[in-house]
């Protein structure tokens, strides 16, 4: 997608050429069919949309969160340790530290609410124009909205984020410093 799109006239020539070659060459036709299947059909508003854009996530906030989970809940220690050698009761004891601490960190820095207020298992109807990012359809996904179905997961949505302010120059990649007792 790096090169610029061809002009309308050039595209007409390409179309005529393709038409000829698809009819005349069965192998080319098979290849074209494959390309057609994987290439998404353009949306109606496609002509006005810019080029697709993917953002590089900003790593600092992620590093900060990892640091908080480690600081309050020993998150990295827990995941970096091999659990296979331990009995369930030992893993469970450590899990309490992780659960209590990570939960504290989570609740202190994020306000989290369910996406759907209904209890899981209840039936609900999605009207036309529902937010497809907030509700995922699964199973018999056919027909037109309104959709009716059963809530299998209520979803989670962050309604507020309150991360600590970071001093300029502070190295967030150090999730927890090494400790040396003198």
């Amino acid at each position, binding site marked *: 997608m790096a090169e610029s799109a061809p002009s309308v006239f050039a595209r007409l020539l390409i179309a005529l050429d393709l038409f000829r070659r698809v009819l005349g060459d069965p192998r080319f036709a098979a290849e074209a069919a494959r390309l057609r299947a994987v290439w998404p059909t353009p949306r109606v508003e496609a002509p006005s949309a810019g080029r697709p854009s993917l953002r590089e996530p900003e790593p600092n906030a992620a590093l900060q969160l990892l640091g908080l989970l480690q600081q309050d809940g*020993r998150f990295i220690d*827990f995941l970096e340790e091999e*659990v296979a050698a331990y009995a369930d009761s*030992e893993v469970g*004891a450590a899990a309490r*530290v992780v659960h209590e601490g990570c939960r504290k960190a989570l609740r202190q820095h994020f306000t989290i609410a369910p996406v759907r207020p209904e209890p899981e298992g209840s039936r609900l109807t999605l009207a036309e124009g529902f937010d497809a990012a907030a509700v995922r359809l699964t199973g018999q996904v056919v027909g037109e909205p309104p959709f009716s179905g059963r809530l299998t997961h209520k979803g989670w949505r962050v309604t507020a984020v309150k991360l*600590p302010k*970071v*001093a300029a*120059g502070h190295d967030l990649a150090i999730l927890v410093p090494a400790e040396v007792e003198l």
Partner: protein
Amino acid sequence: MSDARYAVGIDLGTTHCALSYVDLGRSSGDEVAQDLMRVPQLTGPGAVEELPLLPSFLYLPHPEEFAPGDLTLPWDSRPGMILGEMARSVGARTPIRLVSSAKSWLCHPGVDRRGAILPPGGPEDEVPRLSPFDASVRYLGHLRDAWNHLHPDADLAGQEVTVTVPASFDPAARELTAEAAQALGLDHLVLLEEPQAALYSWIHESAGEWRNQVRVGDIILVIDVGGGTTDLSLIAVTEREGSLELTRVAVGDHILLGGDNMDLALAHLVKGKLTGDGKTLDPWQVQALTHGCRQAKETLLADRSVKAVPVVVPSRGARLIGGSLRTELTREEVRRALVEGFFPEVPASARPAARSRAALTRLGLPYAQDPAVTRHLASFLGMQTGATEDLPGFSPGRTGSFLHPTAVLFNGGVFKANQLAERMHKVVNDWLASDGAPPARLLAGADLDLSVARGAAYYGYVRRGGGVRIRGGTARSYYVGVESAMPAVPGLEPPVHALCLAPFGMEEGTEAAIPPQEFGLVVGEPVRFRFFGSSVRRDDPVGVLIEDWSPDEIEELDEIQATLPAESRSPGEVIPVRLRAAVTEVGTLRLEAMPRMGSEHWKVELNVRKPTGD
């Protein structure tokens, strides 16, 4: 006073500080626009968060300990010390650099409160030290800077500031607290006793409904058990010109006994169980254990269906699963250790185990020797039988062996554990029943952690005429020691008599009469006097000389000191002076020495620097 936009209440607690404020322009009558300031503070290297409380911990870092810039605050790029949450967590690993419980040191009669003595016990030449007074200045300074950062258009110095102190604070500790605030430029300042602040908060929460919940003749007992201290007060409901009035009639002694003692007691119990299993704990793990026990305690004492709560001491190293210690705390253990240990069912005649004065001379905090809060309360109520005698609407001589409260208000984080509040309430009601008196009602409290700050801000508002005020004045009468004129007997100290300088219940902004007795002061030389206070002698007038008293009636306080400057006098000359007491508008006691001739007067220092080596 008139141009303040906010009434600000500051709870300068032993373990936590909090700041609440009332927007005066948006408040009238029972409609009060009140908020809590979330305090920006370091929570880790390079991380600043706004938390509802500022832990009263101060850490003095080594210059190489943190990367440059990692201690930056929104208003200070290079603070020399760490306050709050991060100080507490870092200090748990390096206790020699941690200052904690500075407020208890501020009220410690045996130490120089302006002397650099904190942290105690650390290597003196390696770790910088602070005085208990400096520590108070730092905590208040952090709150002031935070306020000014968050309210750039309303400098804290221009607001009505109320700082709370324990009701049991001695005059010197009160004065040092006021001085700390004044050192930061907070001139519109008043002090308020913490149990009163808790009652103000309750009044405020009731939104006018309080007038229906109490009646004339009620005696409200405020039991405030915080992180480090137990503070007791009695507040009577009286009537003046047809409307209800509140009068604080008595306050308890300074008792260093609080939630921290309880958590520590549990931690030692659990530590005993772990060492019984052959496991050893280092001091850091004990600290972590204390934290775990606090959580477990609150769960077990709040929910009766829970029988046991696991307590896990995380490892110090990265091996979390392999290195952690696990045990559990049962409901029965917590009941035995806390409910029976700190709140035992004792008769009203019980008294706490006596504390020997010798214990005060050692360098360390004079923690209460008897952990039973109920015994301290029994002693307080037993001593205060006469507290309401002079009040209109209270029949004299109706009390039995102790003063009968008719209502109880709990305050302090300890009572978040319902069962402790229930036990305390039951004990008080059992005492009342044994005296044939009706049970005391419970005044449903507000937020146990924040009500002192809230009540203080609300007080700043009612002082401007917005609502009911608690009267009371000083909760003690004060005396100066006078050596009696008797022939010298070898080996026998001349007995000391107590001359009353300040009567009980002096209101803010008043002066006492001047007793006729004169003292000879040597010009240019500091002269010390012994100083006494009594929370039960309510009727002593100024100038009365008491020759005989029992130790639980009059208590000796720190010595006071007067120095006459040598200006216009020859050093060594002896000048006869009289002593006058006053209570300032701020709420501190002021003593002055006045010569017989002329209009000069000099301040008598309540807080005297101890001679070195003491």
